[in-house]
Protein backbone atom coordinates (compact mmCIF):
# COMPACT_ATOMS: atom_id res chain seq x y z
CA UNK A 1 0.00 0.00 0.00
CA UNK A 2 1.15 3.49 -0.86
CA UNK A 3 2.54 5.14 2.31
CA UNK A 4 0.89 8.45 1.31
CA UNK A 5 -2.47 6.71 1.12
CA UNK A 6 -1.89 5.27 4.56
CA UNK A 7 -1.04 8.74 5.91
CA UNK A 8 -4.18 10.22 4.35
CA UNK A 9 -6.18 7.40 5.90
CA UNK A 10 -4.71 8.05 9.35
CA UNK A 11 -5.66 11.73 9.13
CA UNK A 12 -9.28 10.96 8.24
CA UNK A 13 -11.27 10.91 11.48
CA UNK A 14 -14.35 9.36 9.89
CA UNK A 15 -12.32 6.51 8.45
CA UNK A 16 -10.61 5.84 11.77
CA UNK A 17 -13.96 5.79 13.52
CA UNK A 18 -15.20 3.36 10.87
CA UNK A 19 -12.16 1.14 11.44
CA UNK A 20 -12.85 1.29 15.18
CA UNK A 21 -16.49 0.22 14.73
CA UNK A 22 -15.50 -2.55 12.35
CA UNK A 23 -12.93 -3.84 14.84
CA UNK A 24 -15.52 -3.95 17.61
CA UNK A 25 -18.05 -5.73 15.45
CA UNK A 26 -15.50 -8.27 14.25
CA UNK A 27 -14.35 -8.91 17.82
CA UNK A 28 -17.93 -9.39 18.98
CA UNK A 29 -18.73 -11.71 16.11
CA UNK A 30 -15.59 -13.82 15.98
CA UNK A 31 -14.15 -13.77 19.48
CA UNK A 32 -17.46 -13.34 21.34
CA UNK A 33 -18.84 -16.85 20.74
CA UNK A 34 -15.72 -18.35 22.34
CA UNK A 35 -15.98 -16.12 25.37
CA UNK A 36 -19.63 -16.82 26.07
CA UNK A 37 -20.19 -20.08 27.90
CA UNK A 38 -23.93 -20.34 27.20
CA UNK A 39 -25.55 -22.32 24.42
CA UNK A 40 -27.43 -19.83 22.21
CA UNK A 41 -30.21 -22.32 21.44
CA UNK A 42 -30.91 -23.70 24.88
CA UNK A 43 -34.02 -22.48 26.68
CA UNK A 44 -33.92 -21.58 30.37
CA UNK A 45 -37.64 -21.00 30.68
CA UNK A 46 -37.80 -21.15 34.46
CA UNK A 47 -34.86 -18.86 35.08
CA UNK A 48 -35.14 -16.38 32.24
CA UNK A 49 -38.89 -15.93 31.85
CA UNK A 50 -41.28 -14.58 34.45
CA UNK A 51 -44.46 -16.49 35.18
CA UNK A 52 -46.26 -14.32 32.62
CA UNK A 53 -43.72 -15.34 29.99
CA UNK A 54 -41.99 -11.96 29.90
CA UNK A 55 -38.22 -12.25 29.53
CA UNK A 56 -36.15 -11.11 32.49
CA UNK A 57 -33.91 -8.11 31.97
CA UNK A 58 -30.16 -7.64 32.10
CA UNK A 59 -28.20 -8.22 35.34
CA UNK A 60 -31.09 -9.99 37.03
CA UNK A 61 -30.19 -13.63 36.72
CA UNK A 62 -26.57 -14.49 37.54
CA UNK A 63 -24.75 -16.06 34.62
CA UNK A 64 -27.07 -14.43 32.08
CA UNK A 65 -25.64 -10.96 31.66
CA UNK A 66 -28.27 -9.60 29.27
CA UNK A 67 -31.17 -11.70 30.50
CA UNK A 68 -33.41 -13.83 28.32
CA UNK A 69 -34.84 -13.52 24.82
CA UNK A 70 -38.49 -13.95 23.81
CA UNK A 71 -38.56 -17.68 24.62
CA UNK A 72 -36.03 -17.78 27.43
CA UNK A 73 -32.76 -18.29 25.62
CA UNK A 74 -29.63 -16.43 26.74
CA UNK A 75 -29.75 -13.06 24.96
CA UNK A 76 -26.02 -12.38 25.14
CA UNK A 77 -25.10 -15.76 23.71
CA UNK A 78 -27.59 -15.27 20.89
CA UNK A 79 -26.24 -11.81 20.12
CA UNK A 80 -22.67 -13.11 19.95
CA UNK A 81 -23.48 -16.23 17.94
CA UNK A 82 -25.91 -14.30 15.77
CA UNK A 83 -23.16 -11.82 15.05
CA UNK A 84 -20.88 -14.65 14.00
CA UNK A 85 -23.54 -15.89 11.60
CA UNK A 86 -24.30 -12.45 10.16
CA UNK A 87 -20.66 -11.46 9.72
CA UNK A 88 -19.70 -14.86 8.37
CA UNK A 89 -22.36 -14.64 5.68
CA UNK A 90 -21.45 -11.04 4.86
CA UNK A 91 -17.72 -11.67 4.63
CA UNK A 92 -17.82 -14.93 2.68
CA UNK A 93 -20.43 -13.54 0.30
CA UNK A 94 -18.29 -10.46 -0.24
CA UNK A 95 -15.18 -12.54 -0.80
CA UNK A 96 -16.96 -14.56 -3.46
CA UNK A 97 -18.37 -11.39 -4.99
CA UNK A 98 -14.93 -9.78 -5.18
CA UNK A 99 -13.39 -12.89 -6.74
CA UNK A 100 -16.08 -13.17 -9.42
CA UNK A 101 -16.19 -9.42 -9.99
CA UNK A 102 -12.42 -9.14 -10.37
CA UNK A 103 -12.24 -12.14 -12.67
CA UNK A 104 -15.08 -10.97 -14.92
CA UNK A 105 -13.98 -7.34 -14.85
CA UNK A 106 -10.31 -7.93 -15.59
CA UNK A 107 -10.80 -10.59 -18.26
CA UNK A 108 -13.56 -8.76 -20.11
CA UNK A 109 -11.70 -5.47 -19.91
CA UNK A 110 -8.46 -7.07 -21.06
CA UNK A 111 -9.74 -9.30 -23.85
CA UNK A 112 -12.71 -7.25 -25.04
CA UNK A 113 -14.63 -8.48 -28.08
CA UNK A 114 -17.64 -10.75 -28.01
CA UNK A 115 -16.68 -12.22 -24.63
CA UNK A 116 -16.80 -8.72 -23.15
CA UNK A 117 -20.13 -7.81 -24.78
CA UNK A 118 -21.84 -10.98 -23.61
CA UNK A 119 -20.63 -10.56 -20.04
CA UNK A 120 -21.60 -6.89 -19.90
CA UNK A 121 -25.11 -7.67 -21.15
CA UNK A 122 -25.30 -10.28 -18.41
CA UNK A 123 -24.31 -7.56 -15.95
CA UNK A 124 -27.09 -5.32 -17.30
CA UNK A 125 -29.64 -8.09 -16.84
CA UNK A 126 -28.50 -8.88 -13.31
CA UNK A 127 -28.53 -5.21 -12.38
CA UNK A 128 -32.11 -4.77 -13.57
CA UNK A 129 -33.46 -7.69 -11.57
CA UNK A 130 -35.43 -7.15 -8.38
CA UNK A 131 -32.45 -8.35 -6.37
CA UNK A 132 -34.04 -8.92 -2.96
CA UNK A 133 -37.06 -10.75 -4.40
CA UNK A 134 -34.94 -13.08 -6.48
CA UNK A 135 -32.61 -13.79 -3.56
CA UNK A 136 -35.56 -14.54 -1.29
CA UNK A 137 -37.25 -16.71 -3.89
CA UNK A 138 -34.10 -18.74 -4.52
CA UNK A 139 -33.48 -19.19 -0.82
CA UNK A 140 -37.09 -20.28 -0.31
CA UNK A 141 -37.11 -23.00 -2.94
CA UNK A 142 -33.77 -24.45 -1.85
CA UNK A 143 -35.13 -26.84 0.76
CA UNK A 144 -33.68 -26.16 4.21
CA UNK A 145 -30.75 -24.07 2.96
CA UNK A 146 -27.39 -24.37 4.66
CA UNK A 147 -25.57 -21.22 5.66
CA UNK A 148 -23.09 -21.73 2.84
CA UNK A 149 -25.95 -21.78 0.31
CA UNK A 150 -26.92 -18.31 1.47
CA UNK A 151 -23.53 -16.76 0.86
CA UNK A 152 -22.92 -18.55 -2.39
CA UNK A 153 -26.30 -17.23 -3.53
CA UNK A 154 -25.53 -13.66 -2.46
CA UNK A 155 -22.09 -13.85 -4.03
CA UNK A 156 -23.42 -15.15 -7.33
CA UNK A 157 -25.85 -12.29 -7.87
CA UNK A 158 -23.99 -9.24 -6.58
CA UNK A 159 -20.66 -9.08 -8.44
CA UNK A 160 -22.00 -6.72 -11.11
CA UNK A 161 -20.90 -3.30 -9.85
CA UNK A 162 -17.43 -4.51 -9.04
CA UNK A 163 -17.08 -6.12 -12.47
CA UNK A 164 -18.08 -2.88 -14.18
CA UNK A 165 -15.60 -0.78 -12.24
CA UNK A 166 -12.66 -3.16 -12.63
CA UNK A 167 -13.46 -3.56 -16.32
CA UNK A 168 -13.29 0.19 -16.89
CA UNK A 169 -10.04 0.42 -14.93
CA UNK A 170 -8.54 -2.54 -16.80
CA UNK A 171 -9.36 -0.97 -20.15
CA UNK A 172 -7.59 2.19 -19.00
CA UNK A 173 -4.50 0.32 -17.82
CA UNK A 174 -4.39 -1.84 -20.95
CA UNK A 175 -3.68 1.23 -23.07
CA UNK A 176 -0.92 2.51 -20.78
CA UNK A 177 2.52 2.74 -22.30
CA UNK A 178 4.16 0.42 -19.82
CA UNK A 179 1.66 -2.27 -20.63
CA UNK A 180 2.26 -1.75 -24.33
CA UNK A 181 5.96 -2.01 -23.58
CA UNK A 182 5.46 -5.22 -21.64
CA UNK A 183 3.57 -6.58 -24.61
CA UNK A 184 6.26 -5.53 -27.01
CA UNK A 185 8.79 -7.32 -24.83
CA UNK A 186 6.78 -10.46 -25.41
CA UNK A 187 5.60 -11.01 -21.84
CA UNK A 188 2.77 -13.49 -21.50
CA UNK A 189 -0.80 -12.29 -20.96
CA UNK A 190 -0.95 -13.95 -17.58
CA UNK A 191 2.16 -12.11 -16.47
CA UNK A 192 0.83 -8.77 -17.74
CA UNK A 193 -2.47 -9.29 -15.99
CA UNK A 194 -0.88 -10.26 -12.70
CA UNK A 195 2.03 -7.81 -12.71
CA UNK A 196 0.44 -4.74 -14.27
CA UNK A 197 -3.33 -4.90 -14.37
CA UNK A 198 -4.24 -6.49 -11.04
CA UNK A 199 -2.24 -4.11 -8.81
CA UNK A 200 -4.06 -1.22 -10.47
CA UNK A 201 -7.57 -2.56 -10.03
CA UNK A 202 -6.97 -3.84 -6.53
CA UNK A 203 -7.48 -0.42 -4.91
CA UNK A 204 -10.99 0.16 -6.26
CA UNK A 205 -11.79 -3.50 -5.58
CA UNK A 206 -10.87 -3.14 -1.91
CA UNK A 207 -12.94 0.03 -1.61
CA UNK A 208 -16.00 -1.53 -3.24
CA UNK A 209 -15.43 -4.74 -1.31
CA UNK A 210 -15.56 -2.88 1.99
CA UNK A 211 -18.85 -1.16 1.19
CA UNK A 212 -20.11 -4.47 -0.18
CA UNK A 213 -19.71 -6.04 3.26
CA UNK A 214 -22.14 -3.38 4.52
CA UNK A 215 -24.54 -4.18 1.67
CA UNK A 216 -24.34 -7.90 2.42
CA UNK A 217 -25.08 -7.32 6.10
CA UNK A 218 -28.13 -5.31 5.04
CA UNK A 219 -29.38 -7.97 2.62
CA UNK A 220 -28.73 -10.92 4.93
CA UNK A 221 -30.41 -9.21 7.87
CA UNK A 222 -33.34 -8.19 5.67
CA UNK A 223 -33.82 -11.77 4.52
CA UNK A 224 -33.50 -13.12 8.05
CA UNK A 225 -35.85 -10.40 9.30
CA UNK A 226 -38.44 -11.62 6.82
CA UNK A 227 -37.80 -15.17 8.03
CA UNK A 228 -36.35 -16.23 4.67
CA UNK A 229 -32.62 -16.01 5.32
CA UNK A 230 -30.77 -17.79 8.10
CA UNK A 231 -33.02 -20.59 9.29
CA UNK A 232 -34.22 -20.87 12.92
CA UNK A 233 -33.31 -21.80 15.58
CA UNK A 234 -29.95 -20.42 14.47
CA UNK A 235 -29.65 -16.80 15.51
CA UNK A 236 -28.76 -13.92 13.23
CA UNK A 237 -29.07 -10.24 14.00
CA UNK A 238 -31.86 -9.91 11.45
CA UNK A 239 -33.99 -12.73 12.84
CA UNK A 240 -33.37 -11.52 16.42
CA UNK A 241 -34.70 -8.11 15.39
CA UNK A 242 -37.88 -9.74 14.10
CA UNK A 243 -38.33 -11.82 17.26
CA UNK A 244 -37.64 -8.79 19.43
CA UNK A 245 -40.23 -6.74 17.58
CA UNK A 246 -42.92 -9.18 18.70
CA UNK A 247 -42.11 -8.35 22.32
CA UNK A 248 -41.80 -4.63 21.69
CA UNK A 249 -44.33 -3.72 24.37
CA UNK A 250 -42.62 -5.65 27.18
CA UNK A 251 -38.96 -5.70 26.27
CA UNK A 252 -37.97 -3.22 23.57
CA UNK A 253 -34.32 -3.94 24.36
CA UNK A 254 -34.60 -7.30 22.58
CA UNK A 255 -35.20 -5.35 19.38
CA UNK A 256 -32.71 -2.59 20.10
CA UNK A 257 -29.63 -4.76 20.79
CA UNK A 258 -29.49 -6.46 17.40
CA UNK A 259 -30.55 -3.18 15.73
CA UNK A 260 -27.60 -1.42 17.35
CA UNK A 261 -25.17 -4.08 16.15
CA UNK A 262 -26.52 -4.02 12.61
CA UNK A 263 -26.24 -0.24 12.46
CA UNK A 264 -22.75 -0.34 13.96
CA UNK A 265 -21.60 -2.91 11.44
CA UNK A 266 -23.17 -1.22 8.41
CA UNK A 267 -22.10 2.28 9.46
CA UNK A 268 -18.59 1.08 10.28
CA UNK A 269 -18.03 -0.67 6.96
CA UNK A 270 -19.53 2.27 5.04
CA UNK A 271 -17.27 4.76 6.82
CA UNK A 272 -14.25 2.54 6.34
CA UNK A 273 -15.03 2.15 2.64
CA UNK A 274 -15.47 5.89 2.18
CA UNK A 275 -12.20 6.52 4.04
CA UNK A 276 -10.34 4.01 1.87
CA UNK A 277 -11.76 5.65 -1.24
CA UNK A 278 -10.45 9.04 -0.13
CA UNK A 279 -7.10 7.52 0.80
CA UNK A 280 -6.58 5.69 -2.50
CA UNK A 281 -8.04 8.35 -4.75
CA UNK A 282 -7.70 11.84 -3.27
CA UNK A 283 -9.07 13.54 -6.40
CA UNK A 284 -12.63 12.40 -5.79
Amino acid sequence: MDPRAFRRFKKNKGALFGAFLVTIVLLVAFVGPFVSSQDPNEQYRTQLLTDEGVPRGPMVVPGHLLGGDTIGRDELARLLHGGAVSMQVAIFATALTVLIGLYVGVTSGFFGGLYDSVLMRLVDVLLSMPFLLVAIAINRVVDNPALSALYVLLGLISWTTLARVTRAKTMQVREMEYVQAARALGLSRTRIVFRHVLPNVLGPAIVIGTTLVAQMIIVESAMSYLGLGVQPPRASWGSMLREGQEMMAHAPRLMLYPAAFIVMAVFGFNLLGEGLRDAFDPKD
Partner: protein
Amino acid sequence: MIQYVIKRLGWAIFVVAVVAVLVFLLMNRVGAPAVATLGPNAGPQQIQDFKRKNGLDQPLAVQFAAYLGVVPCVRQGSRAFKDHPDDPGYCGLLQGDLGDSFTHNEPVARVIAHRLPRTLLLGVLAIFFEIFLGVSVGILAAVKRNTWFDTGFMATAFLGISLPTYVTGPIFLLVFAFFFGWFPVGGYGEGFWDHVYHGILPAFTLAIVGAATYARITRSEMIETLRSDYIRTAKAKGLGPSTIVVKHGLRNALLPLVTLLGLDLSLLVAGAIITENIFAWPGMGALAIQSIVGLDAPTVMGVVLVFSAMVQVGNLLADLAIAALDPRVRLGNEPS
Protein backbone atom coordinates in the same frame (compact mmCIF):
# COMPACT_ATOMS: atom_id res chain seq x y z
CA MET B 1 -34.72 9.70 -30.25
CA ILE B 2 -37.65 7.47 -31.20
CA GLN B 3 -35.23 4.83 -32.37
CA TYR B 4 -33.53 5.04 -29.01
CA VAL B 5 -36.79 4.64 -27.11
CA ILE B 6 -37.75 1.62 -29.19
CA LYS B 7 -34.34 0.07 -28.60
CA ARG B 8 -34.57 0.70 -24.90
CA LEU B 9 -38.09 -0.70 -24.72
CA GLY B 10 -36.90 -3.81 -26.54
CA TRP B 11 -34.10 -4.20 -24.03
CA ALA B 12 -36.51 -3.66 -21.14
CA ILE B 13 -38.81 -6.37 -22.45
CA PHE B 14 -35.84 -8.70 -22.87
CA VAL B 15 -34.76 -8.16 -19.27
CA VAL B 16 -38.26 -8.68 -17.92
CA ALA B 17 -38.51 -11.85 -20.01
CA VAL B 18 -35.24 -13.19 -18.59
CA VAL B 19 -36.47 -12.52 -15.07
CA ALA B 20 -39.78 -14.19 -15.90
CA VAL B 21 -38.11 -17.36 -17.21
CA LEU B 22 -35.82 -17.50 -14.20
CA VAL B 23 -38.57 -17.09 -11.64
CA PHE B 24 -40.84 -19.48 -13.52
CA LEU B 25 -38.19 -22.20 -13.47
CA LEU B 26 -37.41 -21.43 -9.87
CA MET B 27 -40.98 -21.73 -8.71
CA ASN B 28 -42.17 -24.63 -10.84
CA ARG B 29 -39.05 -26.68 -11.41
CA VAL B 30 -37.09 -26.30 -8.20
CA GLY B 31 -39.96 -25.63 -5.83
CA ALA B 32 -42.92 -27.93 -5.29
CA PRO B 33 -45.93 -25.60 -5.32
CA ALA B 34 -48.57 -28.34 -5.21
CA VAL B 35 -47.26 -29.82 -1.98
CA ALA B 36 -46.65 -26.38 -0.49
CA THR B 37 -50.22 -25.25 -1.23
CA LEU B 38 -52.07 -28.40 -0.20
CA GLY B 39 -49.99 -29.12 2.88
CA PRO B 40 -48.11 -32.25 3.92
CA ASN B 41 -51.26 -34.30 4.45
CA ALA B 42 -52.51 -34.13 0.88
CA GLY B 43 -53.00 -37.50 -0.80
CA PRO B 44 -51.66 -38.34 -4.25
CA GLN B 45 -55.13 -38.00 -5.85
CA GLN B 46 -55.53 -34.50 -4.41
CA ILE B 47 -52.12 -33.46 -5.70
CA GLN B 48 -52.94 -34.90 -9.11
CA ASP B 49 -56.21 -32.94 -9.27
CA PHE B 50 -54.46 -29.74 -8.22
CA LYS B 51 -51.80 -30.24 -10.87
CA ARG B 52 -54.38 -30.84 -13.59
CA LYS B 53 -56.44 -27.86 -12.52
CA ASN B 54 -53.44 -25.57 -12.73
CA GLY B 55 -51.75 -27.16 -15.71
CA LEU B 56 -48.80 -28.32 -13.63
CA ASP B 57 -49.05 -31.79 -15.19
CA GLN B 58 -47.84 -30.41 -18.53
CA PRO B 59 -44.18 -30.17 -19.58
CA LEU B 60 -42.53 -26.99 -18.27
CA ALA B 61 -42.00 -25.53 -21.74
CA VAL B 62 -45.71 -25.95 -22.54
CA GLN B 63 -46.66 -24.44 -19.20
CA PHE B 64 -44.48 -21.41 -19.84
CA ALA B 65 -45.69 -20.95 -23.40
CA ALA B 66 -49.27 -21.18 -22.17
CA TYR B 67 -48.43 -18.68 -19.45
CA LEU B 68 -47.19 -16.29 -22.10
CA GLY B 69 -50.31 -17.01 -24.17
CA VAL B 70 -48.64 -18.29 -27.32
CA VAL B 71 -50.03 -21.83 -27.06
CA PRO B 72 -53.56 -22.81 -25.98
CA CYS B 73 -54.53 -22.86 -22.34
CA VAL B 74 -53.50 -25.85 -20.20
CA ARG B 75 -55.02 -24.83 -16.87
CA GLN B 76 -58.23 -26.82 -16.63
CA GLY B 77 -59.44 -24.71 -13.74
CA SER B 78 -59.14 -21.49 -15.71
CA ARG B 79 -62.10 -19.48 -16.95
CA ALA B 80 -61.17 -20.20 -20.56
CA PHE B 81 -61.66 -23.92 -19.85
CA LYS B 82 -64.91 -23.41 -17.97
CA ASP B 83 -66.46 -21.36 -20.76
CA HIS B 84 -65.38 -23.59 -23.66
CA PRO B 85 -64.18 -26.96 -22.38
CA ASP B 86 -63.67 -28.29 -25.92
CA ASP B 87 -61.84 -25.29 -27.35
CA PRO B 88 -60.44 -23.32 -24.43
CA GLY B 89 -58.38 -20.89 -26.48
CA TYR B 90 -55.58 -18.92 -24.89
CA CYS B 91 -55.20 -17.73 -21.32
CA GLY B 92 -51.81 -16.09 -20.95
CA LEU B 93 -50.02 -12.79 -20.55
CA LEU B 94 -50.84 -11.72 -24.10
CA GLN B 95 -54.53 -12.11 -23.29
CA GLY B 96 -54.09 -10.18 -20.07
CA ASP B 97 -54.50 -13.28 -17.91
CA LEU B 98 -51.90 -13.81 -15.17
CA GLY B 99 -53.37 -17.10 -14.05
CA ASP B 100 -55.16 -17.96 -10.83
CA SER B 101 -53.55 -17.56 -7.45
CA PHE B 102 -53.05 -20.82 -5.55
CA THR B 103 -53.73 -19.28 -2.17
CA HIS B 104 -56.05 -16.33 -2.83
CA ASN B 105 -58.76 -18.15 -4.76
CA GLU B 106 -58.83 -15.29 -7.23
CA PRO B 107 -57.16 -14.40 -10.53
CA VAL B 108 -53.67 -13.00 -9.91
CA ALA B 109 -54.53 -9.93 -11.98
CA ARG B 110 -57.34 -9.09 -9.58
CA VAL B 111 -55.14 -9.64 -6.51
CA ILE B 112 -52.54 -7.30 -7.97
CA ALA B 113 -55.12 -4.71 -9.04
CA HIS B 114 -56.25 -4.73 -5.44
CA ARG B 115 -52.78 -4.43 -3.93
CA LEU B 116 -50.85 -2.25 -6.35
CA PRO B 117 -52.62 1.06 -5.57
CA ARG B 118 -51.72 0.64 -1.91
CA THR B 119 -48.03 0.23 -2.68
CA LEU B 120 -48.21 3.15 -5.10
CA LEU B 121 -49.71 5.31 -2.36
CA LEU B 122 -46.85 4.34 -0.08
CA GLY B 123 -44.37 5.08 -2.87
CA VAL B 124 -45.85 8.50 -3.63
CA LEU B 125 -45.79 9.47 0.04
CA ALA B 126 -42.22 8.22 0.36
CA ILE B 127 -41.06 10.14 -2.71
CA PHE B 128 -42.69 13.27 -1.31
CA PHE B 129 -40.78 12.87 1.96
CA GLU B 130 -37.55 12.09 0.13
CA ILE B 131 -37.69 15.16 -2.06
CA PHE B 132 -39.03 17.50 0.57
CA LEU B 133 -36.51 16.50 3.25
CA GLY B 134 -33.57 15.70 1.02
CA VAL B 135 -33.70 18.76 -1.19
CA SER B 136 -34.36 21.28 1.57
CA VAL B 137 -31.61 19.91 3.83
CA GLY B 138 -29.27 19.71 0.83
CA ILE B 139 -29.90 23.34 -0.15
CA LEU B 140 -29.53 24.64 3.38
CA ALA B 141 -26.33 22.67 3.87
CA ALA B 142 -24.91 24.07 0.63
CA VAL B 143 -25.84 27.64 1.44
CA LYS B 144 -24.47 27.33 4.97
CA ARG B 145 -21.46 25.37 3.82
CA ASN B 146 -18.93 24.38 6.49
CA THR B 147 -21.06 25.54 9.41
CA TRP B 148 -22.21 23.25 12.20
CA PHE B 149 -25.54 22.94 10.39
CA ASP B 150 -23.84 21.57 7.29
CA THR B 151 -21.53 19.16 9.12
CA GLY B 152 -24.23 17.99 11.49
CA PHE B 153 -26.82 17.31 8.82
CA MET B 154 -24.39 15.69 6.44
CA ALA B 155 -23.15 13.37 9.17
CA THR B 156 -26.78 12.53 9.90
CA ALA B 157 -27.36 11.89 6.21
CA PHE B 158 -24.41 9.52 6.10
CA LEU B 159 -25.76 7.70 9.11
CA GLY B 160 -29.16 7.66 7.39
CA ILE B 161 -27.69 5.72 4.47
CA SER B 162 -26.47 3.11 6.92
CA LEU B 163 -29.87 2.67 8.57
CA PRO B 164 -31.75 -0.22 7.00
CA THR B 165 -35.54 0.11 6.96
CA TYR B 166 -35.98 -2.91 9.23
CA VAL B 167 -34.02 -1.04 11.88
CA THR B 168 -35.68 2.37 11.57
CA GLY B 169 -39.17 0.96 11.01
CA PRO B 170 -39.51 -0.98 14.28
CA ILE B 171 -37.89 1.91 16.18
CA PHE B 172 -40.37 4.40 14.70
CA LEU B 173 -43.17 2.00 15.59
CA LEU B 174 -41.85 1.80 19.13
CA VAL B 175 -41.42 5.54 19.58
CA PHE B 176 -44.16 7.21 17.55
CA ALA B 177 -46.85 4.57 17.59
CA PHE B 178 -46.25 2.84 20.87
CA PHE B 179 -44.92 5.43 23.30
CA PHE B 180 -46.45 8.61 21.92
CA GLY B 181 -49.42 7.03 20.22
CA TRP B 182 -49.36 9.57 17.40
CA PHE B 183 -49.68 6.95 14.69
CA PRO B 184 -51.41 3.57 14.41
CA VAL B 185 -49.32 0.45 15.07
CA GLY B 186 -49.40 -0.77 11.47
CA GLY B 187 -52.32 -1.66 9.23
CA TYR B 188 -54.04 0.11 6.38
CA GLY B 189 -57.16 1.79 7.77
CA GLU B 190 -60.41 2.63 5.99
CA GLY B 191 -61.09 5.50 3.63
CA PHE B 192 -58.51 7.52 1.70
CA TRP B 193 -57.37 9.92 4.42
CA ASP B 194 -57.13 7.12 6.93
CA HIS B 195 -54.93 5.24 4.46
CA VAL B 196 -52.71 8.29 4.18
CA TYR B 197 -52.59 8.58 7.97
CA HIS B 198 -51.63 4.92 8.29
CA GLY B 199 -49.10 5.37 5.51
CA ILE B 200 -47.14 8.25 7.01
CA LEU B 201 -44.90 6.20 9.29
CA PRO B 202 -44.11 3.45 6.76
CA ALA B 203 -43.55 6.02 4.01
CA PHE B 204 -41.24 8.01 6.25
CA THR B 205 -39.30 4.84 7.06
CA LEU B 206 -39.08 4.03 3.38
CA ALA B 207 -37.91 7.57 2.59
CA ILE B 208 -34.96 7.84 4.97
CA VAL B 209 -32.29 6.24 2.83
CA GLY B 210 -33.51 8.11 -0.24
CA ALA B 211 -33.74 11.42 1.60
CA ALA B 212 -30.17 11.03 2.82
CA THR B 213 -28.97 10.32 -0.72
CA TYR B 214 -30.91 13.29 -2.11
CA ALA B 215 -29.49 15.57 0.56
CA ARG B 216 -25.92 14.58 -0.23
CA ILE B 217 -26.34 15.00 -3.97
CA THR B 218 -28.33 18.22 -3.74
CA ARG B 219 -25.64 19.69 -1.52
CA SER B 220 -22.72 18.86 -3.79
CA GLU B 221 -24.60 19.94 -6.94
CA MET B 222 -25.72 23.13 -5.28
CA ILE B 223 -22.21 24.01 -4.13
CA GLU B 224 -20.91 23.52 -7.63
CA THR B 225 -23.72 25.57 -9.16
CA LEU B 226 -23.35 28.41 -6.69
CA ARG B 227 -19.73 28.74 -7.76
CA SER B 228 -20.50 29.27 -11.43
CA ASP B 229 -20.22 32.54 -13.31
CA TYR B 230 -23.88 33.17 -13.92
CA ILE B 231 -24.55 33.08 -10.20
CA ARG B 232 -21.93 35.79 -9.78
CA THR B 233 -23.65 37.73 -12.56
CA ALA B 234 -26.98 37.34 -10.79
CA LYS B 235 -25.43 38.62 -7.59
CA ALA B 236 -23.89 41.55 -9.46
CA LYS B 237 -27.31 42.38 -10.87
CA GLY B 238 -28.40 42.81 -7.28
CA LEU B 239 -30.81 39.88 -7.03
CA GLY B 240 -31.73 38.75 -3.51
CA PRO B 241 -30.16 35.59 -2.10
CA SER B 242 -33.38 33.57 -2.16
CA THR B 243 -34.06 34.42 -5.81
CA ILE B 244 -30.54 33.39 -6.71
CA VAL B 245 -30.70 30.11 -4.83
CA VAL B 246 -34.13 29.08 -5.96
CA LYS B 247 -34.38 30.45 -9.50
CA HIS B 248 -30.81 30.10 -10.68
CA GLY B 249 -29.16 27.59 -8.42
CA LEU B 250 -31.85 25.02 -7.79
CA ARG B 251 -32.93 24.60 -11.40
CA ASN B 252 -29.52 23.37 -12.40
CA ALA B 253 -28.76 21.49 -9.26
CA LEU B 254 -31.95 19.45 -9.63
CA LEU B 255 -30.90 17.80 -12.89
CA PRO B 256 -29.10 14.82 -11.36
CA LEU B 257 -31.99 14.34 -8.98
CA VAL B 258 -34.26 13.50 -11.91
CA THR B 259 -32.07 10.53 -12.81
CA LEU B 260 -31.99 9.55 -9.20
CA LEU B 261 -35.77 9.62 -9.02
CA GLY B 262 -36.02 7.04 -11.78
CA LEU B 263 -33.42 4.81 -10.17
CA ASP B 264 -35.22 5.32 -6.91
CA LEU B 265 -38.06 3.14 -8.12
CA SER B 266 -35.98 0.01 -7.74
CA LEU B 267 -34.92 1.06 -4.25
CA LEU B 268 -38.51 1.79 -3.32
CA VAL B 269 -39.57 -1.59 -4.63
CA ALA B 270 -36.97 -3.34 -2.48
CA GLY B 271 -37.80 -1.09 0.45
CA ALA B 272 -41.53 -1.70 0.09
CA ILE B 273 -41.01 -5.43 0.48
CA ILE B 274 -39.54 -4.91 3.93
CA THR B 275 -41.48 -1.85 5.06
CA GLU B 276 -44.85 -3.36 4.24
CA ASN B 277 -43.92 -6.38 6.31
CA ILE B 278 -42.88 -4.27 9.29
CA PHE B 279 -46.05 -2.17 9.28
CA ALA B 280 -48.46 -4.88 8.13
CA TRP B 281 -49.29 -2.74 5.10
CA PRO B 282 -51.24 -5.05 2.77
CA GLY B 283 -49.59 -4.04 -0.51
CA MET B 284 -47.43 -5.67 -3.18
CA GLY B 285 -44.41 -6.10 -0.92
CA ALA B 286 -46.35 -8.04 1.68
CA LEU B 287 -47.98 -10.02 -1.14
CA ALA B 288 -44.54 -10.84 -2.55
CA ILE B 289 -43.34 -12.35 0.70
CA GLN B 290 -46.59 -14.19 1.41
CA SER B 291 -46.64 -15.75 -2.02
CA ILE B 292 -42.97 -16.70 -1.94
CA VAL B 293 -43.38 -18.34 1.46
CA GLY B 294 -46.47 -20.20 0.23
CA LEU B 295 -44.83 -21.00 -3.13
CA ASP B 296 -47.87 -19.46 -4.81
CA ALA B 297 -46.14 -19.60 -8.18
CA PRO B 298 -48.63 -17.60 -10.31
CA THR B 299 -48.77 -14.78 -7.76
CA VAL B 300 -44.98 -14.67 -7.42
CA MET B 301 -44.73 -14.47 -11.21
CA GLY B 302 -47.23 -11.64 -11.33
CA VAL B 303 -45.57 -9.65 -8.57
CA VAL B 304 -42.09 -10.11 -10.03
CA LEU B 305 -43.28 -9.09 -13.50
CA VAL B 306 -44.95 -5.94 -12.18
CA PHE B 307 -41.92 -5.00 -10.07
CA SER B 308 -39.42 -5.62 -12.88
CA ALA B 309 -41.54 -3.65 -15.34
CA MET B 310 -41.76 -0.75 -12.88
CA VAL B 311 -37.99 -0.69 -12.46
CA GLN B 312 -37.42 -0.77 -16.23
CA VAL B 313 -39.92 2.00 -16.88
CA GLY B 314 -38.38 4.08 -14.10
CA ASN B 315 -34.89 3.75 -15.59
CA LEU B 316 -36.13 4.62 -19.07
CA LEU B 317 -38.08 7.66 -17.88
CA ALA B 318 -35.07 8.88 -15.93
CA ASP B 319 -32.87 8.76 -19.04
CA LEU B 320 -35.50 10.44 -21.19
CA ALA B 321 -36.09 13.17 -18.63
CA ILE B 322 -32.39 13.91 -18.43
CA ALA B 323 -32.15 14.16 -22.20
CA ALA B 324 -35.16 16.46 -22.29
CA LEU B 325 -33.88 18.73 -19.52
CA ASP B 326 -30.21 18.87 -20.39
CA PRO B 327 -29.51 19.78 -24.01
CA ARG B 328 -25.91 18.58 -23.67
CA VAL B 329 -27.01 14.98 -23.25
CA ARG B 330 -27.32 13.00 -26.48
CA LEU B 331 -28.89 9.62 -26.13
CA GLY B 332 -26.49 7.05 -27.52
CA ASN B 333 -26.99 3.55 -28.80
CA GLU B 334 -25.72 1.79 -25.71
CA PRO B 335 -28.46 0.41 -23.54
CA SER B 336 -26.98 0.80 -20.12
